[in-house]
């Protein structure tokens, strides 16, 4: 590229610290997790090789499958909740309007707040006594709908996912907004000339232009849904009675509460596998339309 010669060692030593930290703490542990997953180990006594036992007992555990089911629910919430709401607000904000920045700031705000604070706030919103949601229902005369939002077996996951949507749709809104602003003016004008208005224009002109972006957000929504932890750990810790447990909570409990590191590692490998399968499936399903 330029006249600096004999730079081999310079380059090597310049990159070394970053590479050591990155490979040693982010990459190698994935391999170690895989390795640990074949052992029975509490971190203190010697490791005992048990082959596939950890995987087999995980797959036999009903609580794990409850976690899988809840993860799928979170994934659906991401895809059918966060993405459309994000797109909806992006469409609303995609125009020159006074005060548009203020609106965007308020809608994006939850994205930057720590999931812990969000969860504690929403835990209070969902409280039976003196919670915001039940209080609002009382105010509008729907007192009969008051619920134990987080504790009820039927509504627990619904309430958790409401918070999940609230915290994250702003992220997708901004991505959609950037994509909308990249649609060339000529295409919009041509569509107007052809008499395409309202819904028709959205469906036949705007949406096809967003295909690539929708695909990217879809991947984000899927992989993020398998990573949900803080939100549920703080709000319900997976309870009551595993009702809102997701796979990451199950993994944490087994590895760090029961001190079963081999078992926990096997679960973390299964989470990775399941999220890859979900992304692959999404790829297959949407391939034709892309």
């Amino acid at each position, binding site marked *: *590229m*330029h*006249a*600096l010669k004999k*730079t*081999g060692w*310079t*380059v090597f030593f*310049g*990159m070394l*610290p*970053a*590479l050591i*930290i*990155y490979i*040693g*703490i*982010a990459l190698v*542990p*994935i391999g170690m*997790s895989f390795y640990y997953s074949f052992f029975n180990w509490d*971190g203190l006594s010697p490791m005992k090789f048990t082959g596939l036992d950890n995987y087999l007992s995980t797959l036999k555990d009903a609580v794990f499958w409850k976690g899988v089911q809840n993860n799928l629910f979170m994934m659906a919430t991401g895809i059918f909740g966060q993405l459309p709401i994000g797109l909806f607000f992006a469409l*609303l*904000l995609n125009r020159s*309007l006074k005060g548009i920045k203020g609106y965007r*700031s*308020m809608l*994006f*705000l939850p994205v*930057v*707040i*720590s*999931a*812990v*604070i969000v969860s504690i*706030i929403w*835990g*209070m*919103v969902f*409280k039976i006594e*003196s919670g*915001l949601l039940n209080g*609002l229902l009382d105010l509008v005369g729907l007192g009969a709908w008051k619920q134990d939002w987080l504790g009820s077996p039927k509504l627990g996951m619904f309430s958790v996912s409401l918070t999940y949507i609230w915290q994250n749709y702003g*992220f997708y809104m*901004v*991505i959609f907004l950037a994509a909308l602003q990249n649609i060339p003016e000529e295409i919009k004008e041509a569509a107007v000339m052809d008499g395409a208005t309202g819904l028709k224009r959205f469906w036949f002109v705007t949406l096809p232009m967003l295909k690539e972006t929708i695909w990217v*957000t879809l991947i*984000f929504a899927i992989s993020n849904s398998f*990573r949900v*932890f*803080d939100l549920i*750990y*703080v709000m319900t810790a997976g309870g009551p009675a595993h009702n809102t447990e997701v796979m990451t909570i199950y*993994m*944490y409990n087994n590895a760090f509460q029961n001190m079963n590191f081999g078992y*926990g*590692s096997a679960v*973390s*490998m299964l*989470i990775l596998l399941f999220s890859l399968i979900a992304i692959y499936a999404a790829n297959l399903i949407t391939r034709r339309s892309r």
Partner: protein
Amino acid sequence: MQTSRIKLSVLHIFLAILCLANILPILWMIGSSFKSEEEFSINPMGLPKQWDFSNYSKAWKVAHLGTYFWNSIFVTIAAILLTVFLGALASYFISRFDFKGSKWVYGLFLIGMTIPIHATLVPIFILMKKLGLLNTHLSLVLPYTAFHLSITIFILVGFMKSFPKDIEESAIIDGGGAYRIFWSIILPMTRPALATVVIINFIYNWNEFLFALVLISKTGLKTLPLGLANFAGTETKFQTMQMAALTMALLPLLAFYLLLEKQLVQGMTAGAVKG
């Protein structure tokens, strides 16, 4: 496009209502934090009848907020310095030098954006235990750095690649070495991207919970999210005091967000918009 005035005001009203509804939980929390526990139990919805500030001094003490703030500030800043310095150096060599495997190294760093943290949790815990680092600030600084090098390098390489190729030429004629060129020419030119990277690293480190939960158990070393989660779990009876604690934890972040929103939003969505 022309939009009629009526349509425009309807849109404004509609947006204003939605936005207010969106931040209602936060407003409710801040409002209620000024109520006494008794008033809150009788009147959880309206504005406080008597503004009571005692929750704030109580919460600050009971929740050890001072300690948690300090720990969060220390860990966040240390991790930012390490990440951005090492990331900038690596980005410089990746973007400005032709060496064998430079693309490969770049690709290797990018993989990091797809690694789920929980899949590395057990080995990192074991590693920190073996190194004797459990319950130290360093045990958080290292993983925070490792996991955010990827996005840092992604943003910085993208920026540094756009510089014209002859920038270094004159410096080389003057006899400057690779590191001097990095320090006195490339780094100053990268300032806008460095700002973005510092800002998103700040927000990620400041909010991080899972590593802290696993690697830190001493109260004196807990970061803000971990400390607040514990506090909320134990002081369930004192709701308005909790709200005061949350409000105090939220305020610096709110100020940070309002000041630096543009770069923050750009940085956080960089992986999705460019990628």
